[in-house]
């Protein structure tokens, strides 16, 4: 039985040695899979996602009413059996996975300039290779990179992260800290929310909370979350720029 989140109050150190406002190591690269139109590999701590994008293309399944004048974003999340600690095959139709797909699709529907490609579909496939918390946030971040790699026009990046609320050190005063970017253990033990923003101004496009938290703590959590998204956006931007630079250098060279 390792220590748990209740020890945070002892020295304001989290289970993996981070402080409250520190992100985990974020590493990403673009164009990792040449067979698709765009792809990205992203690690946020030990949460690892491979994202691929195909399209815009004609929809494979023609649904009855396809009069939409906008490109449709279709998201498929594939949680690999070896991604968790217990090797377990997850059904495609599992509710959590479906919800994840829907949330990602809705978020990008808002930033992709879909009207440029009417009657078409952009397929985003997210392969979860390893899970260690902040799954939705990592999926959103990976999808942003893959869409950029595929050259799909978007108004801006979507950058996402999670925020939890640490246990209070005693019952009388609430000195709980918001904790940025949760790993799997923290996510199991603490109330948390996932937040995603687009653009430099930090417009919130996803805010998801499945656990209960004291109302008074919410404001601080959102505020720290917004800041976290800003940091992530900076990191993603840097990844894209570095990649662009390398591509250019390769062409010129």
């Amino acid at each position, binding site marked *: 039985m390792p220590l748990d989140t*209740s020890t945070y109050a002892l020295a304001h150190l989290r289970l993996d*040695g981070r402080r409250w406002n520190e992100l985990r190591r974020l590493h990403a690269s673009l164009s990792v899979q040449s067979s698709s139109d765009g792809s990205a590999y992203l690690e946020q701590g030990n949460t690892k996602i491979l994202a691929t994008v195909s399209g815009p293309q004609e929809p494979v399944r023609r649904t009855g009413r396809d009069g939409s004048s906008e490109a449709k974003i279709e998201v498929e999340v594939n949680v690999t059996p070896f991604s968790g600690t217990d090797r377990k095959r997850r059904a495609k139709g599992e509710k959590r996975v479906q919800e994840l797909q829907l949330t990602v699709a809705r978020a990008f529907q808002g930033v992709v300039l879909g009207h440029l490609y009417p009657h078409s579909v952009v397929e985003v496939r997210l392969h979860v290779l390893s899970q260690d918390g902040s799954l939705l946030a990592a999926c959103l971040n990976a999808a942003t990179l893959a869409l950029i790699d595929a050259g799909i026009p978007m108004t801006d990046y979507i950058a996402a992260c999670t925020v939890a609320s640490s246990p209070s050190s005693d019952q009388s005063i609430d000195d709980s800290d918001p904790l940025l970017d949760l790993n799997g253990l923290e996510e199991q033990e603490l109330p948390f929310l996932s937040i995603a923003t687009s653009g430099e101004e930090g417009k919130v496009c996803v805010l998801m909370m499945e656990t209960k938290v004291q109302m008074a703590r919410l404001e601080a959590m959102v505020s720290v979350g917004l800041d976290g998204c800003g940091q992530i956006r900076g990191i993603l931007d840097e990844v894209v720029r570095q990649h662009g630079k390398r591509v250019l250098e390769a062409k010129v060279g």
Partner: protein
Amino acid sequence: MTSLKRSHASTAPTTTLSSKTYLRTLKSGKVQKIVRELYLRQDIPCSSQLCTACLDLAPPSFHRKTEPFVLSATPAATKQYPQGHYLVPDTNAFLSAMDLFETEGAAFQDVIVLQTVLEEVKNRSLPLYNRLIALTKNEGKRFYVFFNDFRLETYVQRDAGETINDRNDRAVRKACAWYAEHLRQAVTARQSARYPAVIMISNDKDSLRKANAEDIEASNLESYVKGLPDADRLLDMVASSREQRLARETKAETLYPEYLSMSAMLTGVKNGTLHQGIFNVSPYNYLEGTVHVPAFDRALIVQGRENSNRAVSGDIVVIEVLPKDQWKAPSSKVIEEEDLGKNENAEVDEDSSEAIVTERERRALQEEVRRAHGQVAEGKKQPTAKVVGIIKRNWRQYVGHVDKDSVRTRTKDSRAQQTVFLVPMDKRIPKIRVRTRQAAGLLGQRVLVTIDTWDRESRYPVGHFIRSLGELETKGAETEALLLEWDVQYRPFPRTVLDCLPPEGHEWEVPKSVDDPGWTGRRDLTDLLICSIDPPGCVDIDDALHARLLPNGNFEVGVHIADVSHFVKPNNAMDKEASLRGTTVYLVDKRIDMLPMLLGTDLCSLKPYIERYAFSVIWELDKNADIVSSTFTKSVIRSREAFSYEAAQLRIDDKSQQDDLTKGMRHLMMLSKRLRAKRMAAGALNLASPEVRVQTESETSDPVDVQTKQLLDTNQLVEEFMLLANISVASKIYEAFPQTALLRRHAAPPKTNFEELGNQLKVKKGMELHTDSSKAVADSLDKCVDQSEPFFNTLVRILATRCMMSAEYFCSGTQAPSEFRHYGLASEIYTHFTSPIRRYADLEAHRQLAAAIDYEPLDASLQSKSKIEAVCKNINVRHRNAQMAGRASVEYYVGQALKGRVLEEDGFIMRIFSNGFVVFVPRFGIEGLIRLRDLPEEVGREQDSVFDSEDYSLTLRGGKVERKVELFQKVTVKISDEAEESTGKRKIKLQLTK
């Protein structure tokens, strides 16, 4: 939105990433590889007030708080360390001597608790971990938790082939070395020469040796304590901790033995090498169980966790008798789970399997063996067995509460799933491991759980939480708890049952016209002067009586019983519900009916002044109360009066009353005394069980007082005629249905049951208990009189009652006629007929009797042996449960009545153990355990006291005067109440005063 303006520093550039990989082996045998990130940093301060370098090191928290430094700039000096010192204890130091670290005063201050150590302590014992956390919050103690595994300089990577323990020991040494160097630099910076020593405390020789080699100051606990000013007092604590450590080092079993296959068990039982029986755990010693098997007179003893092999009290087990040299005497000691198991972890350590038998338990039992060799005669040894398999689990839902020490995270909003211990109310049931996400919310609640499994590798069974009944000690929760605990069906009657009631409802009455089919086969007995005699306030009147003098000088006596079978037809919904409930359950403030109120308290109830259907037994008795003839008939009666016992007694005693009703009652009184005398002469037992009544104020139903129930002659009057009716009916239905009559028997107790009591009476009082027959028992009980102590006889009767078997319902075809006998009543045959409103057995007897007198045909269900057997089995259980629930209810209310009061009362010692004794307080009908370790200091100390098992006495020493307490002794006890930690029940606490 002020917080929005706050700047949030980005990922600190000061961290270095490392990762921690470890393998975790699951119960299922699967191996999980867990990879965790670790962010190593240099901004974790040393927290010494000597250091200026660390002052601004730690970044502030979200709330801009920085933690003040904990460790003193001038820590205490000792002989060995005149410059002052900080302590760095290793894991075992905390595990073995937490008391020492908790000492008040100047010792054990300025302690550095390493993260490595904290984590290990948590792994080993959650309660000790919680105590350690409490210490870190105690400002005076100056305990600082240093997260050495997150600090770059002190982080230690586990080498290939290195055990976790070795790695951790190395981490402790590395942290010590870092601290020593860090402090030296800090002090040098201040240009001072004296810097405190950093001393590693460990009892591990190897670790101490390595520390020495690495130039780290280290000491074992004992030699460190020797250097302290208050060494003598503290050394005491070290000694006891060393003992504990030795105990831990001996190898413990890690798995329960495997069960035999079902076929192996059955073959074994068939050819006599194995035995089958019900496993019963002693209420005084959770490590000892007994199993009665036909092949042995005495119960077989099953001692210790390994031998009882996961059997839970109530399970049907198969046992193997151990070789004679391993036989044991029954435990003479109180052993309670809460004492021995209090530092255990509910959470199973995934890295290593837990020991099945803890060392403390092993030692608790070993002491027993030592005593057994020294003082107990060989004759006291009893056949001892071990459980080799389970035929049938008798697991049910258990009511209990969450052990607060087993809860890891107590914050209400924590969602962490954790394993906690659930402590059942029933002390004979082991703690249950329950996995839950709502542990914090369940603290302080009465909860309902079940056991799911008990695997070989788990010391305790595993179950799951069902629901919460409400807060501990609230009346609603406690009442529901005891109903659930005794499996009493207390939900309101469903619609389908109520639909079986007569449509007229309360308007129903006996038809006016005798041509009505209701009158068919009924005798009109409305002319008879019938009355009922019951406890005061009784509304469900089952029985009424009459007597009159016949012209020939004999008496006609009638017992009239509510004709419930007229209203409850076999196999309808109401009958099924009643057969399931089996009996009405009486709690102090509540009655849970077997039949709907309309029947029980109105239509069937033999209320006075109105006509009611009855089932009558009418005898002609001569002056000696011998039966001349008996008749059974369905009837219509009209009771003239409903007396309470007291009112009836007054009426009979009042010479001025000369009316026929009173005369009839006097005949009844006279005849009942004859009947009683004859019964006693035949060897019926007059046994005693402590019965108390709780007086409640009706509106609030808060208990106000407790009284012992009083018995009047009229109680016995009613009882005698009910017995007579039951016996007559039993003969009649047995005659009519020799294979399927529903009867009640009370087996003669095996002689060995009385051995202990007989010996106690002989040794302590020089009295003889003869047990050849119930008559002999009855006679010798009459002689057990202590002139100076009138209560002594009752005490002996209470103890004798506990040696008896319990009476049971059975189907006549399943037993030989010689087995029908009712031992306690000294009757050859017996059944229950007189309380059909509140007992299902009586209702069945009514149906059989009605068929026997050709009133109506017998329903098919009452002709099948197997069906009657099934009914008997159920009502036997229900009957017993109802008694237990009633008792538990009284116990609860007595506790409530005594709440906040402190009384002194006389009590009698009724049982004696080597480490305590049981006192019975007649006034409240309560018995309580007084443990030697709870004795006030002036009375005596446990370790100095001497137990003499031959003499049933304890000599209390160590107090002001030496004092002997012995069995049957009258003592004065102080009664107070307290909420019992282990069961969460408010219980009465007894203390010896003089």
